[in-house]
Structures are given as C-alpha cells and as structure tokens.
C-alpha cells in the first residue's frame, strides 16, 4: 500500500513536472515572451513623465495655433478659403478629433507609468519560459529518480527532498519577484494599451500626422504670406508662429513614437495572447504546492515497510 502511494506520488510529480515544463510550448511562450520583451524595450523611451509632458506641450502649442485660425480666416477674407487652403481647413476641422485621440493616447501612457515600471522590474521576458521549463524538468527528474529508488533510506529519500525543494521554490518564487503585485499591474497595462495597439489606431495617428504636417506647411508657406499681404502683422499670431517653429521638433518626436506603436502591434498581440498576467503567480504556486505535498506524503511513509520492485 505504502509503495503504491509513493509510486502514485512520484507519478503525480512527474505529471506535474511535464505540465510545468510543457506550459511554455503550449502557450507559445518561446516566441511570445521575447516579443513582449522587445515591446517593453522599445516603449522605454516614451514611458516617462517628462516625455509625456513634452508631447502634451506639443498638443497645447497646436491648440493655441488652431485657436488663432478663426481670426486668420476672417482677416484673409477669402470666400474660397476652404478650397484655397484645404490643408489648413482640414487642420481646423479635424483638430478636436486629433487632440482628443492623442490626449487619450498620452493619458493611457501616463497612467501606466507605474505599471510599466512594475513589469520591467520582473525578470526579463525572454527568461519567462525557462522559469517553467527548468523546474519542470527537474521535477520530472526527481519523480523518475524517486520511482527508481523508493524511500527506504535517507539516501533513497533524496529524490523526494529534491522534489520538495523544487515545489517550495516554485511557491516562493512569485513572492520573491513580487509577482503578486507586479503581474496584476502588467495585466492592467495590457488591458489599457489594448485599444491603442492596433493597426487601425496607428493608421489614425498616421493620418493625424498628415493633418498636422499638411496644415502647418500650408499655414507657413501659403496662408501666412497671404495674410501678410493684406497688411496684417504676423506678430499678432504668436501661436501659429510657435507651431511652425516647433513643428520640426514635433515631427522628430512623433515619428519614432508612431513607428514604435506600429512596429509593436504584433509584439503586443503576442503578449496579449499569453494567459493573463494576473494568473502568472498561480502558475508557479499551484504546481509548487502540489509537488511539495506529493514529496511530503512520500517522505512521511519512509518508516513503513517498503516493497522494492
């Protein structure tokens, strides 16, 4: 009876080990986790309060310029304004949408700064699969070893001590890496980024670039010279001047951010396809507890007569 229980415990440990070791393959972690790591690395330049604040200041600059457009429109007095300055007219009309969408994007980044920091404090993404494979394989080895040796002596109990240590290690690992707090933060970030990490959303942002760039260039190259020709003083429009002055810097900053969003849509989707970050600590704790329990049961039977096969 005792030998049977021990054998069953060893087999259960092996099964758990196989499950743990196979989990990364089942969830395609070997490809998805590194993609997540790449995404985290590439977003790093933008996940700072200073950078987000700078982007907000760009939006404020454009807002001031667009506020002045109504005055410019009436000062120029062109009845065909909307066709003569189609890019400026588009900027004027679409700015509320652009501003709302870009503000939403920046808000999402802003409120996830702590979450991002929490996730980056976890072990590197590419190592995630190995946190399952290595203990899983060792548990399998311990289970097989236990099956072959039984538990009739301290030496023969060694495989069970190994299995117990691995189980306890798996239970302790999430606490050591603060996964119980950090993983849910990662899950929250993934949820919040989901609406902005799509090709459609990136296309929208690209179209904003055309709206802003087209509007600015027509403002600077056509509309403001036409306004000046009416005798107006361009100094009366500091917002537009500031927009044109800041535009090259905006373009240089917006460009790589849009590129980062676009180039990480696939990476995000890979991470999103993994099991929820909330569950990750329990992927360690649950099998760890079971394996440690199996080892405890087996070792507690050591005083009983053993029938060696």
């Amino acid at each position, binding site marked *: 009876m005792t030998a049977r229980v021990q054998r069953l415990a060893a087999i259960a440990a092996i099964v758990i080990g196989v499950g743990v070791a196979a989990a990364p393959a089942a969830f395609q972690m070997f490809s998805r986790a590194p993609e997540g790591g790449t995404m985290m690395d590439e977003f790093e330049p933008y996940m700072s309060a200073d950078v987000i604040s700078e982007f907000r200041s760009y939006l404020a600059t454009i807002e001031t310029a667009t506020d002045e457009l109504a005055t410019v429109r009436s000062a120029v007095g062109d009845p065909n304004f909307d066709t003569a300055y189609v890019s400026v007219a588009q900027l004027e009309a679409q700015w509320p949408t652009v501003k709302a969408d870009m503000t939403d994007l920046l808000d999402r980044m802003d409120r996830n700064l702590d979450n991002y920091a929490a996730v980056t404090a976890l072990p590197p993404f590419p190592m995630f699969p190995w946190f399952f494979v290595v203990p899983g394989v060792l548990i399998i080895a311990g289970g097989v070893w236990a099956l072959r040796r039984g538990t009739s002596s301290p030496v023969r109990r060694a495989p069970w001590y190994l299995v117990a240590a691995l189980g306890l290690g798996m239970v302790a690992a999430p606490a050591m890496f603060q996964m119980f707090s950090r993983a849910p933060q990662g899950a929250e970030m993934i949820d919040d980024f989901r609406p902005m990490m799509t090709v459609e959303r990136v296309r929208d942002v*690209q179209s904003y670039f055309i709206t802003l760039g*087209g509007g600015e*260039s027509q403002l600077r190259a056509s509309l403001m010279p036409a306004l000046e020709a009416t005798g107006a003083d361009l100094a009366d429009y500091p917002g537009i001047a500031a927009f044109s002055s800041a535009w*090259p810097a905006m373009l240089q900053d917006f*460009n*790589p951010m849009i*590129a980062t969003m676009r180039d990480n849509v696939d990476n995000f989707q890979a991470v999103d396809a993994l099991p929820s970050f909330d569950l990750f600590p329990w992927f360690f704790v649950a099998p760890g507890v079971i394996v440690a329990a199996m080892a405890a049961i087996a070792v507690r039977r050591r005083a009983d007569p053993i029938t060696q096969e």
Partner: protein
Amino acid sequence: MSSSHPTLRLAIGAIAALSLVGAACGDDETTSTTAPVTQPDVTDPSSTEPSVTEPMATDPASTTPLTEPMNLFEGELVGLFAIAAGQCVDGTVTGSWFQMVQPGGTADAGPYVPNGDSACADTNYSLLSPGMAAGLRSGELQVAPDPAFDESGNGLAADIFAPVPFFGVAFAGAMDAGGPTPAVTAADGELNADLTAFTAYYGGGTFNQGAVATGTIDPMTGEYVLEWTSLISGGSFDGFTGVWHLEGVFTPAG
C-alpha cells in the same frame, strides 16, 4: 500621251541607274549617317517617290543600316543618370518628381499626401532637382553622409538630388551602405534598374524606398525616364507608398 512613254521610261531608267551606281560607290559611313534622315521616307506609306526608293529597299545589304538606328545605349549602363529638375508649368509637371501615396491608395490614383512646401500648385507633387553629383550614378553606391540628419531632422544626403522640403522638414535620398550597388541595363530602349538600396532620410528616420525601377532610354540621345514605387513596411510611414519619377540624360562613365 502615248508619245511620252518612251521618254518617261528613259528618265526612270536613267535615275535608277544613277541610283544604283551611287549606292555601289557610297561607303558605309555615309550610308549610316544618312539613315535616320531617309528612314522616315522608306517607312512612310505616304511617300511620293516609291519608284526611286524601291530598288534600295529591296536590297538587304542596303536596307539594314537604313532601317535600324544606331543604339548607343545597350546592355549594362554604367555612368550618370543626370536628373532633370522638376518643374510645374501651367499645371503640367515635367522633369523629376516624387509623390507619396496614403495607405490603401494607388500610385496612379492616390490619395496622395499633399506637401504644403511643394512648389507646384498641385501639392501632391514634390519636385526633385539635381544634387551635387547631378544625379544617380549606376555602378556606384552614393551613400548618405554621417550624420545623415541635422538637428532639425532634415536629411543631409545631397548627392543624387537636393533635399526636398516636405511638411517643413527636408527629405533626402541616398543608397543604403549595406545594399546592392545600383545596376542599370538597357535592352531595345527599355531600362531595368536595381535600385533596391535607395533609401529616404526624413525627420530623423530612414525609410527604404528601393525597388527595381523600369523606364526607357532614347538609344541615340540617352534621354531616359526611370520610375518606381516602393511600399514602406513598418515604422511611422507604414503602408505609405513612395512614387519616384526620374528623368534626364544618361552619360556613360569615362
């Protein structure tokens, strides 16, 4: 009427005989230099002198140089494809230019990205003007300088064409240092150019704009047209397509 036939026959016979003697005495050089001039008469069905040219046209030895113009630009072309500056006159775009097609659009129909800095009334066209090397050199990698941008994000490569303002920031074009050397071949006036290393520099970012370009070249004058489109994959301009049109005159190296 009937009395004039012997005279007419005699005159035609004399002209034909003189023509044959002239053809027999003429050297190859003379024949080839006159070929482009006489070619339209031979091929023109409205020619009013069939009886005079017919004997020459039926002689294989003499018709070959007459009907085939000299092709100076055949095979691999190594040299300078000088860029003719783009111009907009009365709504017509000539010379070399660039367009950017928005995602989902087509090279022929757009929609294009209007460039408020364009010199054209149709701001969908951004005109190109020759750079310091006057144009594109085949058989040579014209790479961007290092650094490739100034602090405002303007592209600095200015060998092939002068940087072009686009949305307030200039884009430049050069060959990627790790890419294949541009190679152009001509066959019967058709051009095929490996320009896969061609890269645009804009706003601090680089965008591959290379492709295998096609076009034509005048076998006598070297006047050429090269066109290609290149879809941007990834980055801030993902899904946009660059449309490039270069024209000018090719000059062989050396």
